[in-house]
């Protein structure tokens, strides 16, 4: 099949392949481990999160500054 035939058969073939290649990359086990949280640091992580939770308390002194709460005003719909 010529390139022109392929293009006629599927006009987005190249683009779809590029999307698959650039967005759907495979990952080895080692590559996944590189981005995972090490279990031994979960103790520190929990304490950090505890502080983060505490800080939200102050953020809510005005409802619009809340964490991920989307607030609608009478006129304007607020979204992140």
């Amino acid at each position, binding site marked *: 099949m010529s390139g022109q035939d392929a293009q006629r058969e599927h*006009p*987005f073939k190249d*683009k*779809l392949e590029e*999307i*698959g290649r*650039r*967005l*759907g*990359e*495979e*990952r080895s086990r080692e590559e*996944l481990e*590189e*981005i*995972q*949280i090490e*279990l031994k*640091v*979960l*103790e*520190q*992580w*929990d*304490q*950090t*999160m*505890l*502080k*983060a*939770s*505490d*800080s*939200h*308390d*102050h*953020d*809510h*002194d*005005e*409802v*619009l*500054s*809340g*964490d*991920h*709460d*989307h*607030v*609608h*005003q*009478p*006129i*304007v*719909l*607020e*979204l*992140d």
Partner: protein
Amino acid sequence: MTVATQTKVAPQAPEVLGAIERALVAHPAFGDSRYIFDRLRVCLTYRLERLAGHSGAARELLDALGAAGRDGLEHVLGDTVVRCAILHAHIQLETPGPSPYALPVEDCELVFAATARHVREGKRDTPLSDGSLSRLGPDAHHPWLWSDEHPADVFGRCLRYLLKQRYNAIPVAPTDAEQAQVTRGIQLLEELLPDLAPSALHHAHALALVPDAGRWTNVSSASQFDLGGTIFLGRSSVTPWWTAEHVFHEALHQKLYDFRHGHTLLDLDVADGKPLPVCALWNPPRLHKANRWHVHRVFAAFHVYAHLTLFAMVAEQREAELAHEYGPLRVTVDSLRAFERAWYLGERLKEDCWELLGSAGRQMVEWLLVALEFMNPSSPPPGADIHLYLDRYVRESREAEGAFRDAQSDPVALAERLGPLARDEVDGARALLATIGAHEPLDRIESAAGSSAEGDLGARFPQLRLLIAEALSDAALDRYRLTESGEHDERLRALVEDGSDRFHPLLAGYPPAVADGRRRATELGFGQSCSDDVGRLLAVLAGAVPRDGRILELGTAVGVGTAWITTGLGTRSDVEVVSVESDERLSNSARTRRWPPYVAMVTADGREAIGTLGTFDLVFADAAPIKYGHIEAVLAALRPRGLLVIDDTHIGSSAAETARERVEMLRRFVSKHPELTSVELDWASGVIVASKSDA
């Protein structure tokens, strides 16, 4: 093309959008829901293993989970109560003492035991599901719909406890019509995004409809990192499109949160400080720089806007086909705005937050930016952002329009307040348009506002803002820059920023000095300024201080209390105000404001300084070391018939015993002191007001 009229990303072929959608779901780390959940399971199990050495119930649950195998536990371990019980018990094991928002350890143990029974009985649905809850669809990814008719078993009781702690309100029992509406919205979402919708919903195990109460007041939808597994939806759902968008939005947050539990999305220390590195330019700052965001919020918004771009593109392209069944398209954010916000946030994450991201976070940013490029190859030039500023400018004009329409507002007074700002904005826009040689847009401004009086301009503030936005937009080289060089963009930014800073205090009728103080507090990440209620009380009492009186504030912080005091004094100049702060950083911040000459800012330890400052008619004792440790010295500085104000007497149930004891001692001292007549107000943060006798 104007900012107001262009709202859509150029259409892409359905095959292309479908390929992007599948790639967003299939990525082995960032998209694959099963992988993301498995990492969450590993991290929760690790904590259970640590707990099992101290808790028989934790051991029981660990054994039950071990016997059940790895698969099919999503709704059990993903359940908000179960995961909170594991996290909270672990935190309390590692950090003894009361923890904010934490379930009591005894309740965690009950949850472990009940969950173990649930798993041993072969159940794989959410432990909340006791027959009282409906499910929002037949498939494994469909969430359960919370109802307040759920009994107070250990799961119902603990969920209510957690929600009460966070939101100070409880979700409602939905009506049949509400349930049908949410179900319909989810059906539409699945129709639009058949791969992404189940992937996101996989992380939302429960959905709760929330009342317009507590911290849900005015909230249309919500989710929280520390309440993983549940999404909250306001009851104001108007169309299936709206519901589809909001459910998708919150479910995506949950997907990211689940990912974050098992991956280095952000640097591990990132929560220790409170930097707010990014300004969400399209959002108004209001009174507290509410548009300054912490990195975790920047990331969550980036992630969701990238996905919402795809949602909106598909929705816009299929509107005609689906309108007969779901009504006309009505979503909160159109595809172009979603794209532009996502692109801007991605740029900011790379340029301003890179050091705050973990390796997973950095890789996910790059991945989502590639996805955005596929959705819309026409991205803004680097650093070009006037479209975002103009978006805010227009949104604020609509707020002003709403304020004029509000039956409770006084339109004449509002017009008077807004008049000087309207004049300055018109002048600023004229000067900018003249500089770039945009004669026709300039003529439009001239003819609409050229010789108008300030009061008239104030009354037409919303319309003038729209006119200015349109003129600037028409004069611009493109949607993103005024001119090729970008050299005049900074003036447009300043016009919008200055306008925002002045607009919100004017709209709220807020004293400028207080608004200024709140901004300084935000810049420093200082969250303990006196509340508006206490501030207004201080203003009232300050205004009543006798002629040539003296006022002492112990604990200036950034000067919010001082601002209320000077507001209450109005035009008086016979009074002396002394404000003491020991923290040099805070004191320096307060000094940056130009105070009236009768205000003396003192940087000193109040415990040492108080004996040297003389006596006062009004004392606001806000600094903890002096109000709890040296209240006798404070009393000595109070003149006969003088007033003492102490706030923050409300102590939460999670506060340390020592904190409760010291407040109780202070309360006893003031209430029983023979020279004082006092009252404690169960109001604001808890306030004691006392007057000193004549003797």
